[in-house]
């Protein structure tokens, strides 16, 4: 037999309820069955390889739900041991997506809210809104979608109001950050087996390389325009580019189709890398590029902008022919078919000014 509490803990393993359930298992690592560890290993490797993952159990029973929760816990320790940013991000995403997919009834939503927030942080008194969350609590979870940005929520007296549509999205975001932040622990006492698996998982991490990067199957960052090369060089030397440098580099990489993971990897070379801030900023900018309002603000800056920002450095002859770092790149990797006309036009319009 399984209880509602166990089901809830399995579906929302980041809650206090789940933590209590887990404590009640009296888990001792030495006693965890080998098969369970094997399953966990499969899960972690699948996450590393970015395979499609199904976290649903075959059928709900006390045992299956319990092992699912144990797997979550073990996987989290292994990933914590690995200290890999990619694994943390992907793990948090997998599990928060799963919880979100389970989030159907209003009752569960309310249960989650009361599990995660104390009563003083909630307000139910504005009509047309499901619930209000205290501003400072809301801000603990950087928005990962447009509609959760503070500017797209309605506020009153220090409460951020959520509707029927936005509340589940908010809870998904909470789940993501709760899981992500829970890696912030000391893993030095983790058992040896876990270290082995962590090492293997780290080696298995798959970083998709965007097509546009490839010329004859190879990465060609040497074809980046001088300004962008200067930024990545300074990262490789251990610095973090400033505010504008970050925007320029990130939007450029997003502009050529680089996935968030790849960009994170670029930034990780820097000693000053702060994963929480960087992840947020990149996801934030990724959300902005291609968004329909205010999209201009965060699409990759033109050469003119780069000059204003003092980021246009080491200009070379090709620079004279382009007005945008992205066109520099596409000219360099030989997008000549499209490029011919477009660049002519740009040169003409440049002369006009």
């Amino acid at each position, binding site marked *: 037999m399984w209880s509602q509490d166990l089901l809830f803990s399995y579906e929302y393993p980041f809650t206090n309820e789940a933590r209590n359930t887990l404590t009640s298992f009296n888990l001792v690592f030495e006693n965890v069955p080998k098969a369970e560890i094997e399953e966990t290993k499969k899960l972690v490797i699948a996450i590393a390889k970015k395979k499609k993952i199904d976290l649903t159990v075959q059928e709900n029973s006390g045992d299956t739900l319990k092992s699912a929760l144990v797997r979550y816990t073990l996987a989290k320790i292994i990933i914590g041991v690995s200290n890999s940013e990619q694994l943390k991000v992907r793990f948090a995403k997998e599990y928060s997506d799963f919880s979100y997919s389970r989030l159907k009834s209003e009752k569960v939503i309310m249960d989650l809210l009361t599990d995660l927030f104390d009563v003083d942080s909630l307000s139910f008194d504005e009509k047309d809104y499901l619930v209000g969350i205290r501003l400072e609590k809301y801000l603990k979870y950087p928005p990962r979608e447009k509609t959760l940005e503070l500017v797209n929520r309605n506020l009153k007296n220090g409460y951020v109001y959520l509707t029927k549509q936005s509340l589940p999205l908010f809870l998904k975001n909470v789940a993501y950050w709760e899981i992500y932040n829970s890696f912030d622990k000391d893993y030095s006492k983790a058992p040896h087996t876990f270290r082995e698996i962590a090492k293997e998982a780290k080696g298995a991490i798959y970083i998709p390389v965007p097509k546009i990067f490839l010329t004859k199957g190879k990465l060609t960052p040497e074809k980046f325009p001088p300004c962008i090369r200067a930024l990545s060089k300074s990262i490789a030397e251990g610095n973090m580019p400033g505010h504008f440098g970050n925007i320029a580099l990130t939007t450029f990489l997003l502009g050529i189709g680089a996935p968030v993971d790849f960009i994170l990897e670029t930034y990780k070379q820097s000693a000053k890398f702060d994963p929480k801030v960087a992840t947020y900023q990149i996801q934030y900018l990724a959300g902005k590029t291609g*968004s329909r309002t*205010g999209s201009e603000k965060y699409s990759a800056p033109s050469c003119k902008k780069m000059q204003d920002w003092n980021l246009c450095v080491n200009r070379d002859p090709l620079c004279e022919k382009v007005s945008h770092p992205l066109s520099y790149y596409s000219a360099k990797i030989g997008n000549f078919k499209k490029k011919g006309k477009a660049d002519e036009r740009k040169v003409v319009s440049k002369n006009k000014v």
Partner: protein
Amino acid sequence: MNEKSFLKTKFREYYLKNRIPLLPRIEQREFGVGDFKKKITSRHLNFPSMNALKDYLVMETPLHISASVAYYGNVKGRTMDEKQWVGTDLIFEFDSDELNPPCMETHDSWRCPKCKKAGHGSVRACPECGSKTLLDSWVCHQCLNAAREQMQKLIDDFLLSDFGFEKKDLSLNFSGNRGYHIYIRNDVVYNLDKSAIVELMNYVTGRNLDPISHGFAEPDFSKSQKTYGPKPTDLGWSGRIARSAIDYIGKADAKSFAVDFNISTQMAHRILDRKEEMVRGIESGLWPLDFVKTKNPLEIWASLAQRFAARSAAEVDAQVTSDVRKIMRLPGSLHGATGLIAMPVKDLDRFDPLKDPIAFKGGSTKINVSRAPEFTLGGETFGPYENKTLELSDFAAVYLIAKGVAVIV
């Protein structure tokens, strides 16, 4: 005596006799100081107590002193990493020159270092040769009032009503020159992280407004020329968008309307004849779209709303609060470019920024003024001066010397 040591002597006198208001958590802040005509010459200073700060002001007497908005775990660290950011105040800055008030045309002037052309107003690039100009900027009650009004709007509309901050958490401070600073200090703000500060900034500036999130429905022109949208009574930005649209329609003339919606003036006239009907529609949450000729009419409404409703907010220097390493003029210190006190403002309505912050009452000094427009200070009107030698009250002499337009004779 040269001008710099004159100012230093005066400032020292002031710091000897006056108290700097308590700066919370002083031991966790970084300080920066500046010199004659240079706002910041060195950073990374720190003071364990208010007394230590006072001693420094009396002994060293920098002409500018600023304190970090951020608090550091290890304030002695040289790099930002070593310093370990642990928390922050939230600050907003209102500078009159950002608001482009009309009075700037009368009291400000510019000159081109290259071709020597000169003129009135605040012109940043020489219209003759395109070089960066040298600006000579001044303030008057009119532009300082503009800054005050914007600040009041931000306080009422955003800080108190939406964010729910309490009046007691806000400290207002005159900048000592052109405007005001608002500091918000409480445990909530202290514990915000950097991403949260970006969110708050975007909220007050209306950046990234998404029409759909604010209740607009995707229009379906096959069914209707109207679409659902926010109502003026809605909370937060939704209501702000609706109210500003109604306000905009009420005030719009055919010409500007035609430009904003990219339609002919003739058509704009026809549409504006239906003003009342449009306003009634928006009040009931049904927005007119029939004349909007872009593929996304919602964007037009949203960007208009942002333009009008956020006018106050948009002019808050967005960099200021989201730049967590920013240092701001120390409240209670003297401003090295005016000699005025960057003083805390208790009663904004009664505060006179050209009178109350005067530090040097009594005494007079003989100076030569190279050039100054007519200006008001300490309840008196001075100037205009052009290469004039005269004896002025100390506060006015200090003002002109600090501004770099007068020398001691």
